[in-house]
C-alpha cells in the first residue's frame, strides 16, 4: 500500500532525484553526449512506463557510487564513473538488470535517436547521428544507396559450394 505520506515523499524526492544528476551522469558515461542527444527524453517516453521508477533508479545509482567511491555518481571524475558503470553492468546482483536497461536506453538516444523519427533526426542534425556520420535519407524519408558495391569478386568461393550457394 502506498500511503499519502510516501506519495508526498515521492513527489518531493522525484525532482531531487532528477537534479542529483545521477541519470545524466550515467548516460554520459555510457556515451558522452547521450544526455544532450535525448537520453532523459527516451527514459521518460510514456510508452516505456518508466517515468515513475526513475527517481528510484537515480537513488540506486547514487547509493552504489557512495558505497564504492564515497560520493554520488555526478561527483565522480570520468575515470571513476567509467569504472563504476563497468562494475555495475558486470555485477551479478539483482539490480544489474536495471543498469543494463538504463544503458541500452541511454545509448539508444545517442546511437539512433530512439525518441525521434530517424529521418527527421538525421536531417535536424541530431548530435548522436551526426557523430556516427549516419547517412542522410532521400526526400521521402527512406534510405537508398544506388552506389553500394565494389563491383568485383574479392575472394575465391569455397570449392564445395553447391549450385544453390550452400555448403555441402
Amino acid at each position, binding site marked *: 500500500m502506498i500511503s499519502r505520506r510516501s506519495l508526498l515523499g515521492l513527489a518531493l524526492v522525484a525532482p531531487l532525484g532528477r537534479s542529483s544528476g545521477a541519470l545524466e551522469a550515467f548516460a554520459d558515461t*555510457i*556515451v558522452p553526449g547521450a544526455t544532450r542527444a535525448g537520453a532523459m527524453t527516451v527514459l521518460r*517516453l510514456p510508452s516505456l512506463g518508466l517515468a515513475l521508477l526513475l527517481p528510484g533508479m537515480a537513488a540506486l545509482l547514487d547509493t552504489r557510487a557512495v558505497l564504492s567511491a564515497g560520493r554520488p555518481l555526478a561527483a565522480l571524475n570520468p575515470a571513476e564513473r567509467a569504472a563504476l558503470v563497468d562494475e555495475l553492468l558486470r555485477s551479478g546482483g539483482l539490480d544489474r538488470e536495471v543498469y543494463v536497461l538504463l544503458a541500452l536506453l541511454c545509448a539508444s538516444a545517442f546511437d539512433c535517436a530512439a525518441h525521434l523519427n530517424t529521418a527527421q533526426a538525421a536531417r535536424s542534425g541530431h548530435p548522436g547521428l551526426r*557523430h*556516427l556520420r549516419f547517412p542522410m535519407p532521400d526526400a521521402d524519408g527512406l*534510405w537508398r544507396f544506388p552506389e553500394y*558495391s565494389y563491383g568485383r569478386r574479392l575472394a575465391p568461393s569455397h570449392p564445395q559450394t553447391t549450385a544453390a550457394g*550452400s555448403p555441402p
Partner: protein
Amino acid sequence: MTFEKADVVVVGSGFGGAVPAYYCAASGAKVVVLERGPRLTRFPHSLRLGEFTRAVDLVVGDGVAAVTGNCVGGSSVVYFGASLRAPSFVFERRCGTGRRVWPRAISRASLDPWYARVEQALPVEVPQWSQIAYSGGVFAAACSRAGRTCNPVPLAVDLKRCVNCNWMLAGCDFDAKRSMLLNYLPAAEAAGAEIRPLHEVQTLTRGDRYVVSYTVIDPDDYRKVVGIGAIEAKTVVLAAGAVATPPILQRSALDVPGAVGKYFSGNGDRVSIAVVDDKKLGMPYEGFAVGRPINTMSFDRLDPVQPEYERFSLQQIYFPAITNVLADTGFGDSARDARAKWASWLSVLAMTEDDNEGVFGPPAPSGSGLRLALSVVRSSLRYRPSSRTLRGWALADDEAKAILERGGLSTVKPWRDFAGSVTAHPLASCRIGDDPRTSALDDRHEVRGHPGLFVTDGSAVPTSLCVNPSLTIAALAERASRIIVESTGRPARDVPLPGKG
C-alpha cells in the same frame, strides 16, 4: 459449451506457420491462423521506439536474449534473408549422447528436395559480386588475404527491386524481401485460410478435439487484452517460434512430454565488431551503413572432418545502431571515440555448434513471458553456455581475428555479454527426434502422445545449424506439411508450390 470450429488451427504466421497453413488450405481444409502480432503494410525506416518495435520483440531470459518478429509473417518480416542449407554434418551430430540427435528419417540428402522447394517458392537467389555491398566486399577481401575462401550468401531478396537501404530489421517497404507476406501467406489466403492478427494463443485443452484459447490484444499496447475466445479443431499446428511455443504447451492442461522447453539452442550465435583501418585495407570503405545486412560468409570452418563443437561459419552482418551499446568500446571518451569510426565498423556473426543448454522455467501466465514495456518480454528461459559451447566461440573468435586482424587491418572484439548471449536464431526448445527422453516430437513433428498436435517452427529443429536457420525451418515445415495434410485425411500430393499453381 460450443466453440467456433475449424479443421486446422495454426498458431503463428512465420515460416513454421505459413507453410502448413498454405498446404492445409490448398488441400481443402478450413484453416484459421492465429497470430499475436499486428498486420503491417508499411515499414518506415525509423529506429524510434514505438515504430520498428511494433514488429520486433526482445525476449529476455537469464543468460540469453532472443530477437524475434511479432507481426503477421513473423520473423520473416524482419529477417535478413540469408537462405542456406545446413551442412550435411549437422544432421549427424551426436551432442555428446553417443548417437545421432536428428531423427533417422532426416538427413541432408533426404531434406534436399524440400530445401529445393522452398528455394523455388520464396524464391532465393545468389547475388553476383557486383551486388555485394562494401561491407561484404571488405570481409571477402580480408578472407582472401588470409588464404580463406568467401562466398556470396544466397538471399530471399528480389535483388532487382532492392534499393540497398540496409533497413531490413524494419521490414521491407519495397517488396524486395521475400518474406512470408509475399509467397506462402497470400497463397494460403487465396486458398481460403483466414489470418487473425493480434490473437495471442494462451492454452490448449483436449477433449474429442483440441480447444485453442486466445486473447485479443490492443494494437497500441500489447499488454492490454481487449477480448478472449476459443476455437475447436482436430488438428493444431503450433508455430509460435522457439521462445513462444514451449510456454503455450507448458501452460496447457495437456500431459506434455518432459522434453518440452528443454534443449533450447541459440544456434551458437556470436557477434563481433571489427574497426577497419582504411589505409591498411588499401581501398576506401566507410560503408558500414550501406547496402544489405548480410552479403558474404566463409564456409572454411564447416569442415566435416573436424570434431563436433569445433565447426562454425563466419558471416558478415550489419545490425542497426540500436545495438551499438553491445560493442565493446569501453565507457566514457573511448565509447565516443569508437563511435566516431562507426562507418568503418564491420560486424561478423559466428554460427557455432552449441550444446542445447537452454531450459524454460515455469511459464508466465500469458504469452511468451511478462511483457515489461513496448517490445521487451521477460522469459523464463535460462541459458548457461557449456565448456564445449564456450570453446566453439573461442575458436570462432580466433578465426575472426586471424582473418580481420591480419596485417593490422582491424581490431576485432566480441559483443559485450552483459545481456547474456544475444541470438536472432532461437531453436530446439520442442524438438523432433527418435528418443522420447530428449525429443518432445516424433519424426513427424507430432507432439508425443497427442495425435493431431504438431510443432513446425524453429523449436522443432533439434540442434544448432552452423548457418542461418530459416531455410531449414521452412524445409522441415514443407516436409511436415505433407504429413499434417495426410493426417487430416486429405490428399497432399498434388498441391503446387505457392504462386506456381
